[in-house]
């Protein structure tokens, strides 16, 4: 453990952990609108503001569209900016997501992942953030509350060095509202890690030297900006790897970067899964292993940039893959993770059979018998797309 970072062990919900990380980071501006299940991040943080333990300018707005718009304005002035949202709130931010990324603003957003309407549902799945996947925001997904805390701190450095906004996803209720034991670093250690703030102020409010941010770009230049954005997202992989190494150095805790493999030694089959259900599936995989089945688990931590190389490496030698995911593309080709994984594997010399299993939409639980079905699917490798837990069998 680093000398800089004496830790405390605290019982925290995912939302509390994010709010605590924000408090330790002490951002310049937080603009947010409360929405289930991310509400408590803002609730808790506004208490820190009211108590004067942070110097943050808190902007309570009337909608998520305004929340992210205020964040964009503040970040354009060089402020360090955070916000939090979920589901319909993230959907309402959609227009501004592209502007934040296009203007290359290092905003950090907690997304307590939740289903989208209709029908209205407040429970967890990944449909909300998956709707933002082509916006230019980097996306990190937490497995547990510790991850949600750590990734929030990491995201600040990644965002500011990549000059890109970053979403940190924590599964609605499963992580946002569940109490877990978390190793919390000292305030000084966190502030030393994140440093003083973005170093490339746009000097937006410098009247002797006025600038225009986000002007009209016609066909002669628009595409060049988009090309630069694509390059920035691609290059962020290096930055994420470097900053995760710095995190390990500073706090003495390793963060899995890109993907976290579990029991993948000599595995012939693998389950690929993001988010909080990785813990449950890990239990099942370890049990299968004990029963002599060569099945492992690969958990992507980063979804943007898409960890194609890491997935190819982790799945080399694997013949069957079951992707378990909590979102659908409604393309008949499966969920976004499965579709992109297949694309990433297409150029591989030996391609495993990929079966895409969509589960847990709108907070539907993963039951013991569902796991047995996953075990069967990974054995039989039927390919295609399956919907788990809808009673029609897989």
């Amino acid at each position: 453990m680093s000398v800089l970072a004496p830790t405390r062990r605290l019982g925290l919900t995912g939302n509390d952990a994010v709010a605590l990380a924000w408090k330790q980071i002490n951002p310049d501006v937080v603009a947010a609108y409360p929405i289930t299940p991310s509400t408590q991040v803002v609730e808790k943080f506004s208490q820190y503001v009211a108590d004067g333990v942070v110097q943050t300018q808190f902007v309570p707005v009337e909608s998520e569209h305004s929340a992210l718009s205020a964040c964009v304005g503040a970040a354009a002035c060089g402020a360090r900016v955070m916000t939090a949202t979920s589901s319909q709130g993230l959907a309402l931010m959609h227009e501004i997501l592209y502007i934040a990324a296009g203007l290359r603003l290092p905003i950090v957003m907690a997304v307590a992942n939740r289903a989208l309407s209709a029908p209205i549902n407040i429970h967890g799945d990944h449909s909300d953030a998956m709707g933002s996947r082509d916006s230019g925001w980097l996306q990190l997904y937490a497995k547990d509350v510790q991850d949600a805390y750590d990734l929030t701190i990491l995201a600040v450095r990644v965002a500011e060095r990549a000059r890109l906004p970053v979403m940190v996803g924590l599964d609605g209720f499963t992580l946002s509202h569940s109490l877990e034991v978390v190793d919390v670093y000292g305030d000084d250690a966190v502030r030393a890690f994140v440093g003083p703030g973005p170093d490339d102020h746009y000097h937006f409010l410098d009247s002797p030297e006025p600038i225009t941010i986000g002007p009209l770009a016609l066909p002669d230049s628009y595409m060049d900006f988009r090309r630069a954005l694509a390059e920035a997202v691609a290059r962020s992989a290096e930055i994420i790897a470097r900053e995760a190494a710095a995190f390990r150095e500073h706090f003495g805790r390793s963060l899995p970067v890109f993907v976290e493999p579990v029991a993948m030694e000599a595995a012939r089959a693998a389950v690929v899964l993001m988010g909080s259900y990785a813990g449950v599936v890990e239990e099942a995989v370890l049990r299968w292993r004990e029963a002599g089945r060569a099945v492992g688990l690969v958990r992507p931590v980063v979804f943007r940039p898409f960890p194609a190389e890491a997935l190819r490496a982790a799945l080399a030698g694997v013949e069957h893959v079951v992707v378990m995911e909590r979102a659908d593309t409604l393309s008949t080709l499966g969920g976004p993770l499965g579709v992109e994984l297949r694309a990433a594997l297409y150029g591989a010399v030996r391609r495993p059979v990929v079966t895409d299993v969509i589960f847990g939409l709108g907070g539907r639980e993963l039951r013991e018998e569902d796991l047995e079905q996953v075990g069967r699917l990974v054995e039989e490798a039927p390919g295609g797309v399956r919907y788990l837990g809808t009673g029609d069998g897989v």
Partner: protein
Amino acid sequence: MSTQASWRALDRGPVIAGGTSRAFLTGTWRTERPVLDLERCIHCMLCWLYCPDSSIQARDGRVVGIDLDHCKGCGVCAAVCPPRAHAIVMVPEGQP
């Protein structure tokens, strides 16, 4: 920005210097041109107030001319010019 500009130089996103609209000659969009008769003008400044392109040139509270590099020819100045003064009339481009 031109097609020759490398995207590699755009790593900070779209940020440009202030005041660039002066160099952007929107007057080329015009199909009708305002013609000002300073003999008739009573310097009420209504055209100056209403012009959406800040194209009415004024000095010391008096209208002195029209900036045709930026006037888009919308005709608001002629419409608000008091009828009895009738100092501004719109003339199709291409006619003297």
